[in-house]
């Protein structure tokens, strides 16, 4: 095994990492870079708690090698806000109370951010389908779906980033 040097651009900042190539993206983000908003959940591609954006695409960071993201733009939940100003999706989660224990929240935020980047006006069904890969054991999902619908309806437009 030969360690490798990679550069991950996380939340618009470059991090040069010297890693064992078996390092998963979630491990690189949490253990090497120290951003712990991204959660380790099932680690079997089931729960979605580790979802981040690679480019504009939501992926589960437990099932992607950090090596495969060398040079790529990654966004975690910490990267959604801008100078302390919450992104619309974060405001909507607050306003709808779209979390209880909070463990799924960062994954939910990233998956729904990815959905909204691709489809700014998703239907309720499309929102539900998009979060199928994210498990929440508290909310029953309704408040999460409502939060995404609020953003889709443009309710935070005047304050959008």
């Amino acid at each position, binding site marked *: *095994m030969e360690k490798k040097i990679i550069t991950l651009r996380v939340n618009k900042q470059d991090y040069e990492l010297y890693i064992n190539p078996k390092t998963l993206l979630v491990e690189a983000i949490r253990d090497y870079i120290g951003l712990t908003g991204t959660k380790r959940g099932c680690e079997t591609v089931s729960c*979605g708690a580790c979802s981040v954006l690679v480019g504009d695409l939501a992926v589960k960071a437990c*099932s992607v090698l950090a090596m495969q993201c060398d040079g790529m733009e990654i966004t975690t939940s910490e990267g959604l806000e801008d100078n302390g100003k919450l992104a619309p999706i974060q405001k909507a989660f607050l306003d709808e109370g779209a979390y209880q224990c909070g463990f799924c929240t960062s994954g939910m935020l990233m998956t729904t951010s990815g959905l909204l980047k691709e489809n700014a006006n998703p239907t309720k069904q499309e929102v539900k389908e998009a979060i199928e890969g994210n498990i929440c054991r508290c909310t029953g999902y309704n408040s999460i779906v409502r939060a995404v619908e609020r953003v889709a309806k443009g309710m935070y437009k005047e304050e959008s980033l």
Partner: protein
Amino acid sequence: MIHDFTYLKPGTVKEAVAMLSDHVDECKIICGGQSLLIVMRQGLIATDYLIDIKGLKELDYIKYDDKEGLKIGATTTHKSIEKSALLKEKYPVLPIMEERLASLQTRNWGTIGGNLAHADAAGDPAPVLIALDAKIKVGSKAGERVFELGEFYTDLFETAMNHEEMVLEVQVPPMAPKTACAYKKFNLLQNDMGVVGVAVKITVDASGTCTDARVILGNAGVTPVRAKSAEQILVGKKLDEAVLVKAGEAAADDADPVSDIHASEEFRRHLIKVLTKRMARQAWEQAVKLG
């Protein structure tokens, strides 16, 4: 814990197959890794070299022409297939199948070549592609070979490729006139692996009589199962309720499903019977409507 490996990243297919031939029995290929990383973490696969082909842009394409049909490169993501306007027009069953393949995140990163090479009996693309008479092109340093996808799977997680070969491309012939294909899997959560899945392709003549049929069962044996006796029942007939019921029963007999935590063998046969009937009817109704 994932076994330590040396990471190799080829820039071209030529480099990839050279690396494969250098490390034949001690390497694995990773593309999206949505299945492979799980089994590596479970310790079921411990490899000394990992060849990462995710970045091979030369295999990332969806091409179609009326003569040769469809060609999809191995590193094309499920997402690209799901969203392809070309496929929605020419092979609508493929995007429909992809919509329910795992989660959005997995479709964003996972690839068609990886899925087919992984050879999971519960995989969604293989039954549908076999119903469409697809071929699969594999390559090694020695050259390329093309298999009928229906003959590619030899056992659970086993394919007819040798250890120096990698999947390059899926090829699907043009759809014959008045032909439609339908696929459905049964599961508890919409995007889980299918407890079973059934793909049926039906061709009809001007009178609405079925002239050709494919019935392919997923997760109904160690490999995708072609239900030939069900096909024989469908061909030459108009697909009324009695014919459809008989075809469903024949497909259930052709299957060789396991009993596991998800379903008993008996329940799987029942599901195959019902889904075969429904998918044959759906494909037949669509085919009759086509010009």
